C-alpha cells in the first residue's frame, strides 16, 4: 500500500471556486480549486445516490450535489446534513510545475 501521485490537469483547467470530474481507471474523483487557490479532491460520487458531484455547485468550501442538494465540505469530506449522512472520502492533492496531482493508494 503506497501512495501514487497521478496527473489530473493543468492548474488553469479548474476555475477558482469550482470543481471538475477526474476519472482514473475504474474510479472517479472530484477535484476542487478554492477561491483562495488551494486544491482538494474527494470521491467523485455523492454518498447519497451516486450522482457525479462535479456537476454540482461550489460555494466557498461547500459542494452541493446537483440532484438532491446534499452538501459536503470538500476540504474534509464532511456531510453537512440530510439527505447526505455519509462523509466523502478525501485524497491528498499537490501542485507541481503548474500541474495538479492527486494521490491514490495502490
Amino acid at each position, binding site marked *: 500500500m503506497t501512495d501514487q501521485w497521478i496527473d489530473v490537469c493543468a492548474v488553469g483547467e479548474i476555475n477558482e*471556486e469550482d470543481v471538475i470530474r477526474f476519472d482514473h481507471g475504474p474510479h472517479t474523483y472530484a477535484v476542487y480549486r478554492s477561491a483562495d487557490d488551494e486544491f482538494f479532491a474527494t470521491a467523485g460520487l455523492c454518498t447519497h*445516490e*451516486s*450522482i*457525479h458531484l462535479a*456537476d*454540482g*455547485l461550489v460555494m466557498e468550501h461547500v459542494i*452541493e450535489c*446537483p*440532484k*438532491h*442538494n446534499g452538501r459536503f465540505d470538500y476540504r474534509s469530506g464532511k456531510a453537512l446534513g*440530510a*439527505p447526505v449522512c455519509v462523509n466523502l472520502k478525501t485524497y491528498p492533492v499537490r501542485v507541481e510545475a503548474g500541474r495538479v496531482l492527486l494521490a491514490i493508494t495502490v
Partner: protein
Amino acid sequence: MSSINAPLVIVGAGHAGGRAALTLRAEGYRGRLILIGDESHPPYERPPLSKGLLQGTVELTGCSLCDSAQLDELDIEHLAGNPVKNLDPQQHRLQLADGSWLHYARLLLATGGRARLLPSVPEHLPNVLYLRTHDEAVALHDSLLPGARLVIIGGGFIGLEVAATARALGCTVTLLEAGPRLAGRVLPERLSSVLLEMHRRQGVDVRLNVAIEAVQGSTRAEAVQLVDGQLLPCDLVVVGIGMQPNTELAVAAGLEVGQGIRVDAQLRTSAPDIFAAGDVCEFRLHPQGVFQRQETWRNAETQGRHAALNLLGGEQPFDVIPGFWSDQYDWGLQTVGVIANTEPTVSRTTPGGGFLLFYLDAEQHLLGACGWGQGNSVAKDIKLCERLITNHNPLSMVALADADVSLKQLLRN
C-alpha cells in the same frame, strides 16, 4: 385526551413520512415513535422508480432512506400493511385495520397518493400497469422486454421517463397525450418542444391531442383504440395520468381538505396537533398565495423534515423554494421557484446545446427559472438561480441573456 406519554405517530411511510421520522430522532426526540405505512418496504425515494430502478441499474436499497435495521436501531416502530381506518381528532387517536385504537400526542399525515385510474382502461387486465410504488416498478421492469410493443397513456413525467427507459431496454414505444404538448401543465412551451423532439428522435411514436376510446381485449390488453378509430396493437399498456391524493382519512375526520390536506404556514392542519406533509399536503407558498400541492422529491424531503421540527414544537413557517427535475435519455431538465407554463421573460443558451429560461417580475426580481442540458449540466445554474431568487435583487435582463456572464457573478454584484 392526549397525554404527554402518548407517541408521535406518522401515517404514511413514504419519503415525507420517513424523512420526518428520521428527523425526529436526529433532533433528539426519544419518546415512542410510530411510522404507519401500506408498503412493506422501509421508506424510499420515488424518482428512481421510473429511471434507474425501472431500468434495472438501481435496487431498492439504492433509493431507501434507511433499512429495517436502522429503523430498529432508532426505535422507530414501522407498522406496514396496517392502514389506518379512522382518525378521531377530538380524542387524539387512530383506529388501525385490526380494530385497535392508538393514541397520539401529535400526528403527521403524509399519506401521499395513488395512481389516477383511466376509466376507459379495465383495471384487471394483467398487462395494463401503473407506476407509483417500488413493486409496481419491478413488475413493469419485468414486462419491458426487447421488442415489446408498449403504449403509454399520458405525456407527463411518468409517461416520458417510462418511454425513455423502455426505449433503452429495446421496446417499441407509442406515447399518447390528450393535450397539445408534453407535460403542458407544468412546463413552458420550449421545454415541451425539446422533449417532443428528443423522444421522436429516439424513436418514440408520440401522438398529441389524442383521445382514447377503449382498451381492447378480454383477458389481456391487445390494442388501444383511439376516438378517431385508429387501433394500436400492444403487448403492454402503461397509464401515467397523474396522482390522486390520499385524503379520505382526513376528509372523514372532518379536516379541511381542498385538492389535498390543507395546512397553514407551519404545516398544521385544521385539527389540533395534526400536521401534513408531502404529496398530499396542500399549502400556500406565500400568505396570500393560492393553495397548491407539490408532487416532488424536494417537497417530500423538505416538508417531511420541516413538519418534524414543528411536531417538536417549532413555529417556523415552511418557506422552501420549490423545484423539480426530470432525466430522460442522457438529458435533464431542472426547475426552481415559480415558473409559469407561459413564455419566460428572458432566456440564454448554454454550452452543449442547452438553455435556461428566467421568469422575472415587473421589478426584475427573479421568480423562477428552468433549464435543459446534457446530464446534470444545468444543475449549477439552477442552484445559482435559487440563490438569486432568495437574494431578491433586481437583475439585468441583458446580463441574464448573455451566456458569457456567469450567474455567480450576478449573485455577487
